[in-house]
């Protein structure tokens, strides 16, 4: 049972890293970006290709996956996304669906539709077990690794957003672009950097998650729903909301698939709809936050 909880938490942490960039673009910049999963897929493929073709070690690939997708995010933000910030949500939805379709077809064309396999280094393959019987806790080392990385990232993100000068600039730009610009904040640069970091995090999540979630060209479509659930349920006004939502979702999904496999993903979707009917703005949202 504890093993299940542990796996659920690891899964949730992974979802959080994948979705947190989306929480920023969607919640803070008010842009509905359904193409977020495509950035995650790019990160995953960068890792896979570097490891398979160039023989690079896994740990070196992770930062490269982050940088690669951050760079792609920055280029796309500057060229395609920026004119769309002011457009209606319908346009944003259509645009990002279009991007997703293109990403899926391109990945299929260039890399092939088969599922890619990541060769983990030896020291991540093991498994440690504590206790016994019903309370046995089995921890896969790779999952421990994921939890460690994600915890570190979460703390860093929270610190950047809450304590640094960049964080206050971002929050100011989000609350009122014109006033922020009047105060001498370069809103465009702030948004560009934020979008790039968000895409980079998605790429890192994709690289980390390739082993757990599987990686094939339909990745953006398959997991888009999960990211969106995390963001919608968690609310978009803070980092802690999506984190808690991701953990809840991860545990519910793993437990549901273990105890009632017949229902499959049914539980997660029903849970989401129930929560959203109950709290349409998300579970953890401060009053008067941006809607």
């Amino acid at each position: 049972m504890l093993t299940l909880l542990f796996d659920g938490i690891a899964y949730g942490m992974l979802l959080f890293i994948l979705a947190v960039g989306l929480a920023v673009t969607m919640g803070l910049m008010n842009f509905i970006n359904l193409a977020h999963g495509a950035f995650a897929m790019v990160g995953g493929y960068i890792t896979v290709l570097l490891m398979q073709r160039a023989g690079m070690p896994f740990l070196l690939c992770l930062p490269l996956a982050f940088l690669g997708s951050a760079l792609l995010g920055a280029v796309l933000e500057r060229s395609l996304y920026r004119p769309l910030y002011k457009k209606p949500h319908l346009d944003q939805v259509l645009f990002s669906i279009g991007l997703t379709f293109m990403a899926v077809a391109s990945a299929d064309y260039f890399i092939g539709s088969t599922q890619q396999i990541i060769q983990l280094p030896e020291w991540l393959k093991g498994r440690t077990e504590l206790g016994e019987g019903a309370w046995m806790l089995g921890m896969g080392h790779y999952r421990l690794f994921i939890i460690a990385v994600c915890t570190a990232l979460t703390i860093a993100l929270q610190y950047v957003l809450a304590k640094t000068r960049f964080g206050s600039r971002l929050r100011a730009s989000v609350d009122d672009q014109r006033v922020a610009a009047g105060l001498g904040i370069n809103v465009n640069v702030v948004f560009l950097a934020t979008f790039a970091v968000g895409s980079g995090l998605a790429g890192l999540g994709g690289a980390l998650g390739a082993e757990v979630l599987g990686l094939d060209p339909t990745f953006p479509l398959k997991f888009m729903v999960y990211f969106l659930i995390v963001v919608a349920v968690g609310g978009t006004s803070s980092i802690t909301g999506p984190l808690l939502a991701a953990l809840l979702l991860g545990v519910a999904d793993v437990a549901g698939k273990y105890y009632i496999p017949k229902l499959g993903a049914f539980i997660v979707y029903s849970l989401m709809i129930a929560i959203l009917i109950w709290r349409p703005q998300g579970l953890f949202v401060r009053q008067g936050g941006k809607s």
Partner: protein
Amino acid sequence: MKVPKSWAWWEYVLWVLLLASPLVLPERALIINEIAIVALFAVSLDLILGFTGIVSLGHAAFFGMGAYVAALFAKLVMPDPLLGLAAAIVVSTVLGAFCSMTIIRGSDLTRLMVTLGVGLILAELANKLDWLTGGADGLQGVVMGPLLGTFEFDLFGKTAAWYSLTVLLIMFVLARHLVQSPFGATLKAIRDNRLRAMAIGIPVTQRIAVVYTIAAGMAGAAGGLLAQTSGFASLDVFEFHRSADVMLVLVVGGTGWLYGGVAGALVFTLLQNVISAITPQYWTFWIGLFLVVLVLVGRERLLRPWTWFGRGGKA
């Protein structure tokens, strides 16, 4: 955007042409049938997206529901197509009424999620209840009886095309009446400014719920037609790309204009047939590229100006 109350001359011409098309192009009857179904689906989405301003990513839920109900009705109860279609409409209308509770609150994001979620739940159900629906293999062996007891469905799809076109015409007339009625005017008021609509005494939530229910019924009819004319229903009818495609159809033709759905269906289906004949595997790439260009260039510049629909769904 102004639609004249009475039918303009070109509308009569258009419908006569549409209804005559299976006779003129008998070898294209299958495609005509497909176009009619997509058009009906798009018109139903237009009611909630174009006229009420609600962004939905889960319209395929009702389409799929209609398809499965029609197929199951033919298989288990009786093969009469009209009764099956009625059953599909009734069930998806009820489902729509139930789901309308989920879309009356919240922001665009919440609505996107909830509509998407409903579609996913239904797809999951259709997959898991394989004793009833055939699971991932789809529901096979649907045999339709003759239409009105006399017209047999043939392999070339001529009967099917006329059947779908007739249903499209009837539904279209109903939708046209709906959006031109005072009720339709209140919908447009809600789309343009929900707060103001509320302030002048329009019962906003109730109106949204009603139009969502009606649109669900129409989408169910489209799904039912698909299942009946193809004799098959599979998980594909619930898939995300159905919802995305129909949105694309509508945007190509123009939202907030009922003929937009018909025109979009015509263009989209022909385009899909042409492109997928050239590159069967990668045609989604071109659709994606088209979407991106469409949004970046702007529909109002790419298409005719009257198809431009100003405010999106700012909740």
